[in-house]
């Protein structure tokens, strides 16, 4: 973890299970991290500025809210055109992220992954159909892998 110094590491380790629910949480974080509270606040602000911390916020379980269908759409796209088409798919406003990944033949023929969220499967399927139209003949096959369940969600763990 080249970009974190020891104090940042201590802070990340102290916060990776979440912010203490206290009216003034920073002294509690300071205690956990073994740092002065002024340092904690200054470093958290700095980490937000550099983007290491996106924000200090709630992560909703959207299976419990209304966004019930999460489909990983996968496509077997010509190697010659996959990058150009990937840019187009990644630019679709309903695609949260889009990656080219290696095929693993014979188990797995797909090299383009695009994650689509929707209220239900019908909405995900409509969006997948739009992706299929954009890919056209360059895509030989596609599939949608719906998530059934979150088995674990902790994010990157770093040693204290």
């Amino acid at each position, binding site marked *: 973890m080249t970009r974190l110094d020891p104090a940042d590491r201590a802070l*990340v380790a102290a916060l990776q299970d979440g912010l203490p629910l206290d009216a003034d949480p920073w002294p509690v974080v300071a205690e956990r991290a073994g740092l002065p509270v002024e340092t904690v*606040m200054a470093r958290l602000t700095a980490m937000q500025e550099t983007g*290491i911390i996106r924000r*200090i916020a709630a*992560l909703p379980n959207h299976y419990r809210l209304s966004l019930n269908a*999460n489909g990983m759409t996968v496509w077997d796209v010509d190697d010659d055109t996959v990058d150009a088409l*990937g840019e187009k798919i990644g630019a679709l406003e309903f695609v949260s992220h889009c990656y080219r990944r290696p095929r693993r033949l014979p188990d797995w023929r797909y090299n383009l992954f695009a994650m689509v969220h929707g209220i239900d499967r019908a909405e995900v399927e409509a969006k997948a159909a739009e992706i299929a139209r954009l890919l056209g003949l360059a895509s030989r096959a596609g599939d949608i892998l719906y998530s059934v369940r979150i088995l*674990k969600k902790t*994010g*990157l763990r770093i040693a204290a």
Partner: protein
Amino acid sequence: MDPLDRIDRQLLQRLQDGIAVEQRPFRAIARDLGVSEEIVIARIQRLLDNGTLTRFGPLFNADKMGGAFCLCAMAVPAARFEAVAGMVNGFPEVAHNYERAHRLNMWFVLACEEPDRIETAVVEIEAATGLAVLRFPKEAEFFVGLRVPTHASSPDTAEARQAEGREAFI
């Protein structure tokens, strides 16, 4: 799960925007919602306890911390699914793990501080489970930064993309 009332919904909306690094960070939210700071904190705890919130705290951008990541998949026999999920989740390197409806039914992300650790973690997971792990490292990323919600009926869409998307699918 208890149904969410109006205050819960307002609180969820506010908490997704994030809190500032300032003393008594819940005070402004309490004022906006017209409740006490204690009630805000108690409700956040309840939303965490009942699973409405997965987490509350800093959302780290793992890419910017310089770690190594790899999406992996396994075909797990149904009869062994829970046991294998337990084994895989027991590895601290497994940052996210999803059951998906496919022959390859377990998809997880390895997040390691040291790039070499990805390979050894895969070998250890294969040894522990007796199952092959397919590796899908990202070779190219296609992404346009600015996003807007798809439709008004799901105001959490953009947030879910940012929160889950960018982190869960490295």
